[in-house]
């Protein structure tokens, strides 16, 4: 394998972000505690620079030449979309973490460095077009995530979250790796395109189907689909809340990207084998995610189950791969989900950093009186999560329901819309607490960084909801393999 000049160029966003993480680590001895804001804004700046490089790369004709690094790394529109979404998530996470870390007794430099490394892993993941590069980058993301989950090491719950995440994550990685090895063993190739060509010319064997199902199981772990979801509530509850916000969005984006890429590019021939299984998993995920969320009193656990339910909706798009709405729908939905879910978590963080635990729904009591704009924005995110128009969540869900109908899963679409209607019940418990409760208290003001994150999320939720055309048109051309 030889490097060409253009390869370095196409890899520049990843390289910049890696360098940024290393610089932060080098700065760690200098900036111990007390410089959290500076370090935070520095990391934010790094992410911004990465985004600029990404923009340059995405505009360059060089990326259209096809996969580079011996077919391991591809910068198609699909990857570019996910890279932007991931950088957005990381930037939002940084903004949401600054105040939060400032009030905690832990150094922030390593925190941001780990976040950037997780980002590097995700950027490589979404570009992976080879089983090995996908797996290695997934592990980079996962290892950074385990440490982030346990970052508040003095808190038992945080440590517990890290341990659970690590053990179950490692287990699921092993399952994934085993599946990949079977797929490789039968196909004899590692590149997704080559694998697809190889399978197209050979008989379907049970061994390869087993391999595919194991790969599927490993990825369903990462997106927290039932029955591979059990780690989610504990990890989400125990992790520091900005990390939870990140987990609920970032790794899911990346995992959906490789799920889509592997199954769309690599295994289209075996749709009949995995279709029904994915349909059943989606049904179970939507039903259990929503029912379990109904039973939660802890807000973070509730959002954990709600994110499980959302993973179920997005699986409808996976089922609709062959329809024009399937992959398009996933992209639209994930974008909407990034804005609305991160926004909701940002409001939970807002309450936490203001001295409120934001552990139970009751902590939202009277928020409308204490800070009306915050309550209204939270309401917007809740409406969007519940799929009420005119919000991004509605547009996203609309696409997914459409994909399911078009793909012939009408029963699943009926189940999905009803599950979605039920979800309103638990989302609106928070709305009721914010607006109906008479609790009094001092007015609250958010920090600058957090407010900025919330405004970005709210703007995204509204724009995708009310004037989606531009976004939709761009995303329409982001199917894997298109440039």
């Amino acid at each position: 394998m030889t490097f060409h000049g253009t390869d370095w160029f196409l890899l520049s966003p990843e390289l910049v972000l890696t360098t940024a993480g290393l610089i932060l680590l080098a700065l760690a001895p200098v900036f111990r505690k007390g410089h959290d804001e500076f370090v935070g804004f520095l990391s934010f700046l790094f992410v911004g620079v990465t985004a600029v490089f990404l923009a340059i790369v995405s505009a360059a004709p060089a990326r259209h030449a096809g996969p580079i690094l011996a077919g391991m790394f591809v910068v198609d529109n699909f990857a570019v979309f996910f890279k932007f979404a991931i950088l957005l998530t990381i930037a939002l996470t940084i903004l949401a973490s600054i105040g939060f870390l400032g009030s905690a007794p832990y150094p922030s430099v390593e925190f941001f460095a780990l976040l950037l490394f997780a980002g590097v892993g995700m950027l490589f993941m979404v570009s992976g077009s080879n089983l090995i590069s996908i797996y290695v980058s997934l592990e980079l993301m996962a290892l950074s995530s385990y440490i982030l989950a346990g970052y508040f090491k003095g808190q038992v719950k945080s440590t517990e979250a890290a341990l659970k995440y690590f053990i179950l994550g490692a287990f699921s990685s092993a399952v994934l790796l085993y599946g990949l090895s079977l797929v490789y063993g039968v196909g004899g190739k590692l590149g997704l395109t080559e694998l697809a060509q190889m399978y197209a010319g050979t008989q379907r064997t049970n061994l390869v189907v087993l391999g595919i199902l194991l790969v599927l199981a490993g990825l369903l772990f990462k997106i927290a689909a039932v029955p591979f979801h059990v780690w989610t509530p504990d990890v989400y509850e125990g992790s520091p809340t900005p990390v939870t916000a990140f987990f609920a969005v970032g790794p899911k984006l990346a995992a959906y990207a490789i799920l889509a890429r592997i199954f769309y590019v690599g295994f289209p021939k075996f749709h009949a084998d995995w279709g029904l299984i994915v349909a059943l998993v989606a049904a179970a995920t939507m039903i259990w995610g929503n029912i379990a969320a109904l039973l939660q009193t802890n807000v973070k656990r509730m959002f954990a189950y709600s994110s499980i339910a959302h993973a179920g909706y997005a699986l409808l798009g996976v089922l609709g791969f062959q329809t024009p709405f399937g992959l398009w729908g996933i992209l639209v939905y994930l974008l909407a989900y990034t804005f609305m879910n991160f926004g909701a978590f940002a409001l939970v963080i807002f309450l936490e950093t203001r001295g409120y635990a934001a552990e139970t729904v009751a902590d939202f009591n009277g928020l409308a009186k204490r800070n009306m704009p915050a309550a209204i924005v939270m309401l917007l995110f809740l409406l969007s999560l519940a799929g009420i128009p005119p919000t991004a969540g509605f547009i996203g869900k609309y696409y997914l329901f459409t994909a399911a109908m078009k793909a012939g899963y009408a029963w699943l679409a009926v189940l999905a819309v009803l599950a979605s209607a039920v979800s309103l019940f638990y989302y609106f418990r928070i709305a009721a607490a914010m607006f109906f409760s008479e609790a009094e208290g001092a007015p609250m003001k958010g920090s600058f960084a957090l407010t900025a994150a919330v405004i970005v999320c709210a703007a995204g939720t509204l724009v995708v909801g009310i004037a989606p055309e531009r976004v939709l048109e761009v995303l329409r051309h982001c199917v894997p393999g298109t440039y």
Partner: protein
Amino acid sequence: MNLSQMPILSIVTYIPLVGALLIVFLVPKEKTGTIKMLATVFAGVDLLVSLPLWFAFDRAKAGYQFQERASWIPSLGVDYHFGIDGISLVLILLTTFVGFIAVYCSYTAIHERQKEYYVLLLLLQTFMIGTFCCLDFFLFYVFWEVMLVPMYFLIGVWGGERRLYAAIKFFLYTLAGSVLMLLGIIALYFYNTTGFLGYKGLGHAPTFSVEALTAVASGMPAELQVWLFFAFFFGFAIKVPMFPFHTWLPDAHTEAPTAGSVILAAVLLKMGTYGFVRFSLPMFPEAIKTDWVLGLVVALAIIGIVYGAMVTLVQKDMKKLIAYSSVSHLGFVMLGVFAGNMAGLQGGILQMVNHGVSTGALFLLVGIVYERRHTRMIAEYGGLARQMPLYATYFLIMALSSMGLPLLNGFIGEFTILQGAFARNFWWAFFASMGIVLGAAYLLWLYQRVFFGELSNPANAKLPDLTMREQLTLAPLVVAALWIGLYPKPLFDVLRTPSENIVRSLGGKTMPPPAMAVKAPPAPAAAETGAGQPR
């Protein structure tokens, strides 16, 4: 001024929204007087601006008027498309009329969080008018859903004791129905374009246009029509509400603040019946001509009429009593609409307006006495006619209008509906007329217990009679009731053309003969179109 040159429907729709935004951003919440004034002005201007629609509307012209069309999401084929026919015209005027009254009647009822209250009322107004204007399914769905949000908060913040329960129940019930409707819309969309579930699509360009999809839907195979009819049915029937989906209604009505109840009764419930008239009837004629489908819907309507009236009879709470009476009245509307002939349809639509006027007024009246006594229990009252003669008079007029006394609006609606039902099937009319008898019973009995007898409860001894403002809120409704009761022709004129279109789309001539409608298979027989149409 040429109305057709202006986006008049958008103007009518968004005036309240502009008012709401002005209040949000410009008026501090302590200045309640300014807030009330602004809200009243904007609701009033909206009413005034909507009036020219009535005069500029061309009664003879088929199709939609005052159309506005712009591309919204071209990649999906979604348009921002407004336009009205006679049916929507009547309901839009009802909305602006009742919306103004709802703002005006709240001055003394609402003391807390007034800024939010009036903002929500105005927002609700915008969303309701928008729903009636939509000629694009996607846009319609957006308005239809988003309307729930302000209503949820109106009930939840300013409602009675069980307001939390009532608010979320209202939201969840209607949402559950409407998401199924969304799937129906998606199915229609695919049938028109690329097909789905083994149905070969027509290959047309993607669109959500109501006109285009209505034409497409009415040509669908019967079994698909039945499926889609039920997808839409849940959305509309829950909103109406039809038995057995009505249980959210008494809770929502009872807990909502007065203005909320008035709007719920007068406009929100009409969304459901409007949906049936605008969408279900013209789109799924084959489904409606299917015996078991029609039988089921009519049976539910008749159960609603009779059961609703019987439950009303035993209520101890005035507001709940009127809430349950809505179930019965809306059953009438459904019966008329599904009779599918000119009399039934026009009567049904007219009865929507009548119910809005009469029941809206009754909720106002209950709200007035509740403000004074803070109880709605019938047993707490008695002999009020001595203490509050004006109030008793207004109440009597509206109760009589609600029970269908000749010369008042309810009579025209119920009579026409019964005429239409009778033309289809004697038994439909027979059972429905039992509802009228029961209706007279519960209203007169209510009146007797509240207004006649001795003024035995000392708490009522010093109740002041209606103020000038209260009279001003009630008088327009009384005028409307009398006008419709004495001279309904203008309304029938407006409704005739769209109703004829619907009856024609139902295959007016191929309707089964009246007496055989339920049992016998449809046979080509005597034309029902136009028969029994009041002149």
